[in-house]
């Protein structure tokens, strides 16, 4: 999600939802606008790939872009306008890029093994640790009731105040705060449980 420019008005992503519905109804005028918007897929992939030290080459990035748009298209009917279209696309990009990088690394590793060379390390790449942590958070958010997760999303991803969130969701600011706190404690429990789970059972 991006900061919302007009927090007090209707959802900024309503126009995106209308656009996606137009695409699903195969409205010709929606196609061009949609194409312009989903170009962001390739750009987000390229930018993140660069940030990660360019593990994928240009042709590989093209493949990942294609896989992303295929996955995204197959789920287009699930877009609900809660986030701007680009932010929704980013979720697909992130997964496809990680998969592409890991696949390439496995391929390179198997080539190394086939050449009887020693694999240098089984350790995670630094970006993978960050991505895993982000994935964990996403999982935690997905476990929350929608009434709570939407408050968290509007607060952190939308940069809204509790007053704005209350207006957006037609609830009082105090209710928004209570839902936020409840969500946060659940998230903290979820993260704690996962952290202790990853360390294994105590001996």
């Amino acid at each position, binding site marked *: 999600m991006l900061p919302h420019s007009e927090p007090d008005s209707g959802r900024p992503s309503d126009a995106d939802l209308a656009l996606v519905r137009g695409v699903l109804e195969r409205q010709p005028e929606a196609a061009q606008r949609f194409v312009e918007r989903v170009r962001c897929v390739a*750009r987000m992939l390229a930018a993140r790939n660069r940030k990660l030290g360019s593990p994928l080459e240009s042709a590989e990035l093209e493949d990942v*872009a294609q896989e992303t748009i295929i996955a995204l298209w197959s789920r287009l009917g699930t877009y609900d306008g809660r986030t701007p279209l680009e932010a929704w*696309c980013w979720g697909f990009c992130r997964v496809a890029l990680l998969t592409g990088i890991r696949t390439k690394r496995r391929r390179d590793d198997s080539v190394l093994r086939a050449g009887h060379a020693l694999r240098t390390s089984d350790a995670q790449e630094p970006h993978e640790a960050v991505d895993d942590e982000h994935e964990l958070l996403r999982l935690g958010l997905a476990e929350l009731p929608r009434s709570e997760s939407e408050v968290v999303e509007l607060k952190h991803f939308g940069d809204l105040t509790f007053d704005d969130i209350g207006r957006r969701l037609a609830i009082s600011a105090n209710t928004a705060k209570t839902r*936020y706190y409840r969500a946060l404690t659940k998230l903290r429990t979820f993260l704690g449980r996962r952290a202790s789970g990853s360390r294994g059972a105590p001996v």
Partner: protein
Amino acid sequence: VRAPHDPQHTAQLEGLLSGAADPRAEFARSELAGCAACAEELEALLDAMERLDALADDAREAVAAGRAEGPAPGEARIEEFVRAQMRPAEPARSGPAVRRWWPLALAGAAALAVYATWPREAPPPPDPGPVLNAGAIALEHPVGSVGEWLGFRWRAELPAGGWFRVRVRAQAAGPVLIESPELHELQWLPAPEVLSRLPRAIHWEVVAFDDSGQPSEPAWASASLR
């Protein structure tokens, strides 16, 4: 000074986390400061908040790049994929019309069989080769049953300043599995590892684009591995 945890602390903690500009400083000034359980809870909740902020920043950065960056690898493929999906569905190639005409087709086949076995001296006409659904593009390989996926070959007149694009699907209406870059020759030879990932049956098509990017009607063929 240690203070025992009081259930009422929870409401105060909630107030701190949802209202204070600096929850740690507020906490230190509040009566909660002596409660070890609340101190631990505060740190855990602040940690969750910081992680959420980091996640949001990461998404913002990615989205900003998506809006600001220049052309990137794969944009053309994305555009073509979306346009292909938005194209009105082609009429079914084996629908009611085929069923309606099957007696005629059967009669034609019988006539052909008679013709083929009729004694004559003239040599049979030359094989025109497979020409499928195309005025200007004739797909040559792979068509029908083949031993392995080697690549794609066709015959056509390349429009001046134009190019070809090949798309391969598992089925006619299915998603594109692989797609060629802009081609200026009459074949496309993807890497063997790409070909090895293709299913045993494919539907492939070739589209010619003129110099303005206007696509021709696609020529298509089905092929499968023996």
